[in-house]
């Protein structure tokens, strides 16, 4: 391996050596791209209730519906084209997963760093609370909070953030405590920089690697959690079916052999989560100093 390249290039080269991770990254980009550009690839807007024809409901893959086009993956119980519904569902899943992950990252990361930096009672108070929350299963927390907040995209995102920020906070706290004791922070503090500058310019950037690893895992988790909540009927409104809800709606028809309504959205969901996890795994291995040769 060449030593002269920038750290980022070197990181990328090492990443590219794992072909599986590379393929997974390609899949993530492909799925995200397809979801963002969903209107271009889909014959139908699944959220436009006026265009749904009940006569097209529960048709198997390959059926040519009243719209005159082929339903590649069949239709659901409301007569939605499943292919369209899946791409739009992915759109919602990714949007919610990324938003929840990003907000949890910022809130949790800052909270952990502030706790580590403040020390004393404030640190004890914050971290006790975080520990308390972490000892409580995320799914239950998300369930209760989304029950409190009611249905809707933003309510769901808020529930996910509330149940996930604690992971970021703990990670940031651990990393920041390790950073805090290093000499360069003491050096920075002995200059007349405000503590805010020290936290955001010095401590946080050095806590990034572990936080990035947590972030990939948590985005995947947020997507899975969203699907789970939707499956339990606690997530999004029925008019905007996310992947979880498509699966949930198809469940009752599965026993009568109409497998496609549940199976295809499930496969889309798994491919996305699996790909994110594989990418995250590789990043974690690369950032783990203990496994470095």
């Amino acid at each position, binding site marked *: 391996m060449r030593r002269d390249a920038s750290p980022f290039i070197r990181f990328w080269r090492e990443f590219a050596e794992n072909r599986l991770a590379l393929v997974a990254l390609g899949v993530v980009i492909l799925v995200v791209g397809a979801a963002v550009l969903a209107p271009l690839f889909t014959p139908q807007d699944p959220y436009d209730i006026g265009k749904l024809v009940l006569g097209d409901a529960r048709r198997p893959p390959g059926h040519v519906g009243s719209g005159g086009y082929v339903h590649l993956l069949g239709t659901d119980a409301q007569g939605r084209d499943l292919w369209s519904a899946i791409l739009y569902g992915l759109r919602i899943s990714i949007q919610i997963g990324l938003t929840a992950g990003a907000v949890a990252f910022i809130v949790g990361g800052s909270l952990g760093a502030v706790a580590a930096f403040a020390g004393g009672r404030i640190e004890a108070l914050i971290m006790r609370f975080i520990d308390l929350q972490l*000892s409580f299963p995320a799914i239950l927390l998300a369930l209760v909070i989304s029950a409190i907040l009611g249905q809707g995209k933003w309510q769901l995102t808020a529930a996910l953030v509330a149940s996930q920020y604690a992971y970021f906070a703990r990670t940031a706290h651990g990393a920041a405590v390790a950073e805090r004791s290093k000499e360069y922070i003491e050096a920075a503090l002995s200059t007349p920089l405000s503590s805010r500058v020290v936290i955001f310019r010095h401590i946080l950037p050095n806590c990034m690697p572990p936080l990035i690893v947590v972030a990939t895992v948590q985005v995947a988790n947020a997507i899975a959690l969203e699907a*789970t909540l939707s499956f339990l009927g606690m997530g999004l409104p029925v008019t905007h079916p996310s992947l979880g809800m498509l699966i949930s709606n198809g469940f009752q028809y599965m026993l009568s052999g109409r497998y496609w309504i549940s199976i295809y959205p*499930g496969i889309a969901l*798994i491919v996305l989560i699996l790909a994110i996890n594989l990418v995250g795994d590789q990043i974690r291995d690369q950032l783990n100093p*203990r496994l470095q040769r």
Partner: protein
Amino acid sequence: MLGFLIQRLLQAAAVMVVISVLVFCGVFAIGNPIDVLISPDATQEIRLDTIRRYGFDQPLWRQYLNFANTLIHGDFGRSFVFNMPVLDLILSRLPATLELTLAAVIGATVLGVPLGMYAGYRPNAAGSRAIMGLSVLGFSVPTFWVGLLLIMFFAVELQWLPAGGRGDTVEVFGIQWSVLTWNGWSHLALPALTLSLFRMALMIRMARAGMREAMLSDYVRFARAQGLSDGKVIFGHVLKNISIPLVTIFGLELAATLAFAVVTETIFSWPGLGKLIIDSIQSLDRPVMVAYLMLVAFLFIMINFAVDVAYAALDPRVRSGHA
């Protein structure tokens, strides 16, 4: 040791009080129970009477104190929906959930730990790669979807196993158990498998990571230099070392699985606590929600406590306060 125990118990009690406040306030914000309790065509008189009877006219803090007061006497109130004491309701559902959870976590550990240890011992072998592939898959596939697939495959297509319900149970010590009948086992198999896949993936990872680190450690090198065979190195030296973090994981997993059973129980119509809580959220049955959440918190705290004790028993460094 006694001081340690007392300190931990006091801490646990304080945490429970905090949780009771949080849970009570949280649940208070969910829906309006009056809509559930009172039929829309009831007279104004009945409405006011009911509101007063349940204390809904009082401020939140007073409602909490009333709740706490009855709670101290072991009374969680009555379910709005089932119209029976919440405690009885929960205790009648608890065994089913415990049975499912234990089956899942024990299964995940018994299978996952050896697989993970092998993958850590021979990280580059084809078998290890397959194991790790399975573990990533187990991590990524949402529990509810696994359940659906299993139902479709084993219950609908092959018709080997039932798609839901608990099946025949046998009463022992006044509690119904399904592990004691063949029919019960057949009902338990699919939900337990569903619930255990994610846990197994986690166990594999933890065991593998522990094994890899241990195999590179100096004490393993020294043990090998003494001429110990790999088997003796692993089972004599490494196992006890890596079992320390694994016991922690086992405990925490037991608790987390108890909570995750919510999803599995819904899919398989398993008559446990998880199904009860989902039903209560949907029917705004506040007393059941509060009691359930507090029970889960209580179990969490007790399990954490048990993990700490097990930790001390396994690690001589912690035992003598050297950690």
